[in-house]
């Protein structure tokens, strides 16, 4: 069974591993970027951004091109009737294929994440959240670092296999895998990840030193005012409140402190008295965030959740192969 699994899977496996190998060589040859939260060279910038793209594309490719066709292609061509009439139970047939695919997916995602996490380490460790780069905990960076991609890849693979069993058509299963996996990838960072661990809530005085961004409309009213949180924190909410704790817009007189008045400005430095008056009037900034040290606990949890989902789907797939298919 292992021989057959390898024989049927080797092309897809070699294609993905070949590309990963090329990518790893490119990263090593390019070398790590200059440490610090400073602008990257154009090559490094391309590699930094490309790293995200590849890291998010890989689990999708694994789900769509490894997972979905695994059983669907056999059902479509009728070759399952050949395979299932050898002296191998369907459970062992699918079990071997699932195990091989899961290992290959985990290894591919693990190696790629290791390479990208290593390469981007000098940038990630310097990012505090107030500069140009996003912190490790921010939605996009989080999913492209550490062990989480392993969970995504394994989940995507098993999802593809099970959708293939369910839908019995390769192309339909591929499309469904893409749609479902993309939906999960979008839902997790926005619906689940911020809330699995209770976020830290703080109300701070707005000062010149913690002021993040200010945005003004043409009429001179505030659209936006944020403060910077602790270094590396993932800001979930950043609102101005009045003395009664109600969410309000900052008073418009604050805009007069901002030169030049009446235009949106990025990171201006208003006068010290302005902030003293603001604090005196009871205005505070309420921030909700996940602190930087939550990175690894959240990574662990997200990986575990994806692996658990994959295990449940695999059990379902093994059951369906025994009972539902002909």
């Amino acid at each position, binding site marked *: 069974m292992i021989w057959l699994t390898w024989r049927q899977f080797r092309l897809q496996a070699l294609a993905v591993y070949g590309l990963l190998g090329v990518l790893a060589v490119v990263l090593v040859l390019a070398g790590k970027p200059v440490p610090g939260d400073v602008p990257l060279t154009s090559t490094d910038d391309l590699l930094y951004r490309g790293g995200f793209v590849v890291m998010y594309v890989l689990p999708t490719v694994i789900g769509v091109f490894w997972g979905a066709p695994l059983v669907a292609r056999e059902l479509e061509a009728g070759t399952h009737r*050949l395979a299932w009439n050898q*002296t191998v139970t369907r459970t062992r047939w699918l079990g071997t294929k699932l195990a091989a695919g899961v290992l290959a997916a985990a290894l591919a995602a693990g190696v790629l994440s290791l390479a990208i996490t290593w390469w981007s380490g000098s940038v990630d460790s310097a990012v505090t959240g107030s500069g140009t780069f996003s912190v490790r905990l921010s939605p996009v960076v989080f999913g492209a670092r550490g062990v989480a991609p392993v969970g995504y890849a394994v989940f995507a693979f098993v999802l593809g296999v099970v959708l293939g069993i369910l839908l019995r058509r390769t192309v339909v299963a591929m499309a469904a895998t893409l749609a479902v996996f993309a939906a999960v990838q979008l839902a997790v960072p926005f619906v689940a990840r911020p809330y699995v661990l209770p976020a830290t809530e703080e109300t701070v005085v707005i000062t010149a030193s913690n002021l993040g961004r200010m945005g003004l409309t043409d009429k001179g009213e505030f659209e936006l005012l944020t403060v910077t949180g602790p270094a590396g924190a993932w800001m979930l909410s950043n609102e101005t409140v009045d003395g009664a704790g109600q969410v309000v817009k900052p008073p418009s007189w604050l805009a007069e402190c901002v030169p030049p008045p009446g235009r949106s400005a990025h990171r201006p430095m208003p006068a010290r008295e302005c902030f003293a008056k603001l604090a005196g009037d009871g205005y505070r900034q309420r921030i909700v965030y996940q602190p930087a040290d939550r990175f690894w606990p959240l990574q662990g949890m997200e990986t575990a959740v994806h692996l658990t989902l994959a295990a449940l789907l695999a059990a379902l797939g093994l059951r369906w192969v025994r009972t539902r298919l002909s």
Partner: protein
Amino acid sequence: MTAALGARALGKRYGRNWALTGCTLDIPAGHVVGLVGPNGAGKSTLLNLAAGMLTPTTGTIEVCGGTPGSGRAQLAKVAFVAQETPVYPGLTVAEHLRLGARLNPGWDDALARDRVAGLGLDPRRRAGKLSGGQRAQLALTMAIAKRPELLLLDEPVAALDPLARREFLADLMEIVAEHGVSVVLSSHLVADLERVCDHLVVLVAGEVRLDGEVDEILATHHRLTGPRREVSTLPAHQHVVSASHTDRQTTVLVRTEAPILDPQWTVGDLDLEDLVLAYLSGAAEPGRRPALEVLR
């Protein structure tokens, strides 16, 4: 020796349609059984049930003493070649044999290689490039080399030209004689089966119409021709399979174990094809369905 195939009130429904209903069969081991019926009669369904590819909606089926597809031991006993004779298009002929050798403990590699060589198949050729007939031969080779107790073949000769068909059936006979394997093969052509089968099952519209050994079937069916008369006037032990009338003459096909004594009848010759066709056409006339009965 246990029965090769035993079914009790077996039924299979797809959605709202019954592909097979109330199928009760007993096929002893060591026979070559022909499963005949028009397209859509439930032949494939019965074979798929026997191979464990399908699970019954009602009733039970036992093959070689076990539930089909119930485990490794059962899978080893039964070989099934599905109607479309599936092979992996991307794998070569040699790789198919390797697949068979790896997945079947009882694999007879010498037999497989001999057959492939005898058929003139290039082992390095991809199965996807083989002709329909060659694919069927490859699928059959894999089934035979597995050395099963029971070989289930769904329309095995459908993809073959007349010459290959004859050779294939001769081959099959050789294998049966050599290895003592039981065979159930389906076809909608009686002529194919007549040559090789010693047991016949006629399926029409999901029901078993006739089941018995070919010799017995031929011995108990008679074509009677005589002056015109109503079929209701025939003796009770004569089951009318089909009847046709002209102005002056009546021809009936009856099944009876008793001799034909009525001197008004001329008893005519009957071959298997006529007989099966009579069953198939008789089925089309409502109210004239012959009783479901095992003839043994």
